[in-house]
């Protein structure tokens, strides 16, 4: 007859215990790293976040096949799209070795490696479309299943290892350029032409 209240007390105690442990872990994390983005995720954070993310992708989306055939035109289009929208963080070569990518938490991954390449096409599509919560990866699409531009980017990720120096150079020319950079490039050209210009300003 006292089973109900006893179970309820145990449940409350369990919840309190979990909250205390979670609070302690959070306190330790904040004190250890100050919520800095400079550190690497702990092994526990990596395992938990990867598992959570994997579970968050519906199985119907995970195994969705790429409806876009890989052609030279798709390859060229996806390179231009990636250079304009993605390379600021991921780098044109997908290594993530950019000022933003290096300093995100977690850092932008080297997408040539297994952690990315082992994902299914559907998972890559889902990530590009929906982003990854609590990371620097925004949702680029509407979340629907048939954004062909996103499927083309999946092809790009799959073919990162095939980028040639010429293609990388063309992508660099397609990267976003700020007004300040355009100004600096003009001044570079004037300097090379023999004019006297002020020294370049660096942040």
């Amino acid at each position, binding site marked *: 007859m006292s089973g109900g209240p006893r179970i309820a007390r145990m449940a409350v105690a369990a919840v309190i215990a979990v909250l205390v442990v979670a609070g302690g872990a959070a306190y330790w994390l904040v004190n250890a790293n100050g919520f800095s983005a400079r550190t690497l995720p702990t092994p526990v954070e990596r395992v938990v976040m990867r598992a959570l993310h994997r579970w968050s992708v519906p199985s119907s989306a995970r195994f969705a096949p790429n409806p876009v055939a890989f052609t030279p035109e798709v390859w060229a289009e996806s390179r231009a799209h990636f250079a304009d929208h993605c390379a*600021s963080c991921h*780098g044109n070569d997908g290594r993530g*070795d950019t000022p*933003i990518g290096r300093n995100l938490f977690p850092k932008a991954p080297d997408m040539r490696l297994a952690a990315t390449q082992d994902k299914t096409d559907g998972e890559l599509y889902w990530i590009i479309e929906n982003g990854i919560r609590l990371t*620097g990866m*925004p949702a680029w699409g509407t979340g629907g299943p048939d954004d062909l531009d996103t499927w083309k980017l999946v092809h790009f990720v799959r073919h990162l290892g095939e980028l040639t120096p010429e293609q990388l150079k063309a992508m660099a020319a397609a990267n976003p350029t700020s007004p*300040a950079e355009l100004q*600096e490039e003009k001044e570079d050209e004037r*300097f090379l032409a023999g004019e006297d210009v002020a020294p370049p300003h660096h942040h």
Partner: protein
Amino acid sequence: MKQLLSVIALVLAISAGAFAHEGNEHVRGVVTALSAQSVTVELANKTTKTLSISAKTAIENAGKPAHLADVKVGDRVVIDVPEHGSNALLIKVGAASKK
């Protein structure tokens, strides 16, 4: 949620502009010394800077691929260098200095 995404997109757009060349610095100067391993340039403030050259260093003359042999002491150059680095990634060659 849309507001949050807009803010993130705005931050990324601004950041993208700031780092469009992935953090490279441009070193403008006149070549004062050159070898297969390094190039030394005199900057506008009359100080000199020496940057290392490797097989990965690209050379451009008037926007077209060139060779290290095309670079001469006295040439004006703009050199792309990684932020806080000293290895020349790209040397753009311009006119010979007036001096």
